[in-house]
């Protein structure tokens, strides 16, 4: 198993580095999906509020 703390602490092989970047990519995609869902639910209400309707 890849030790992310050890990777971040200094020195890693290419597989560990790829896993670390994969974690960043996964977080980005999850945040995109998560915030997208929030936008679906609340987006229109927020826009209507901003429009002053």
């Amino acid at each position, binding site marked *: 198993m890849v030790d992310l703390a050890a*990777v*971040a602490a200094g020195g890693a092989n290419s597989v560990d580095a*790829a896993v670390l*970047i994969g974690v*960043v*990519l996964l977080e*980005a*995609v999850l945040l*995109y999906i998560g915030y997208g869902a929030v936008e679906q639910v609340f987006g229109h209400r927020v826009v209507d509020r901003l429009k002053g309707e």
Partner: protein
Amino acid sequence: MEILGLGLGMVLLFIGFGLLIGVLFGFFGMGGSFLVTPALLVMGYPTRVAVGSGLAFVFGTSVIATLKHRDMGQVDYKLGVLMIAGTTAGIEAGKEIVIHLESLGMAGSIISVTYVFLLGGIGAFVTYEALKGGGGGGIDHDQADAEVDDDDIPEIAKKIQSYRVPPMMSLRGGVSVSLWLILAVAFVTGLLSGFLGVGGGFIRMPALFYLIGVPVPIAVGTDLFEIVFSGGLGSFLYAMDGGVDLSIVVPLLAGSAFGARIGSAATSIVDEDEIKVYFGLMLLGGALAVAVREIGNVYGIEVLNTVSLVLILGSALMVSGAVVYSSVTALREESQSSSPA
């Protein structure tokens, strides 16, 4: 209370900082490494970690912003791939020039002066062009593939498009440009990026608009698409050297993911000329900040480093605030004009 080894205060600070950068990144397709790396350096992180974590953050934010721009039909993948090819070759050439200048002992001063003049020059040019422009409103995303109005294409781009050296490439917005000219523009932007050691969004975005002639929102979306690859590769290389710290990247990304959605959505609401004015002002603020930092380095005035950071953060805060304000104003105007009298 600690999260990922950081105190709650620091985590909230990073989330807020990420939100600010996300708005700018989603709106302009630039600003990540420009803001994050100097801030992390001032906070006391080692250079390797500041640069590596900054790149990993830029990579994550560009993924989110590109996905959002893709949803709005603002990414030209064909142009993006061609730009990646030309830019990669250009970066290598830029690196070689830096190595040559280093051997002559002139790299630092030449790069700094070029950076300030390029940043300030592009900022002044974009602001001037936008201020003399005649407005035009946001982009209609239902017609993302519709032909661009001839009046909206800058003169330089019209000249470049007039050179019909085969093969010709059809781009989004009905733009047709020679493959060789796209690769040449990509090479030159890559060369500057490699020479200056920056991500290059502030060079590529105006180059896509002013030289190739694609509409601003598509220039932003395509630029972001390219940053996914350059940021991914850069952060991977730094991660191999232990330069990526997840305790920095994770909270920054949590804030920027939200900010990037706001910034990306704002490109379709805010007037295109306003986007350019903000972009220009942001670059002018950046040029001033870099100039102040360099003066501090040359004369050994430590405090000018902090002044430089305050200038960068101040202009970022001001411009992202203006983007949000303009979006809300545009939404209200749209609402008033569509409501029955």
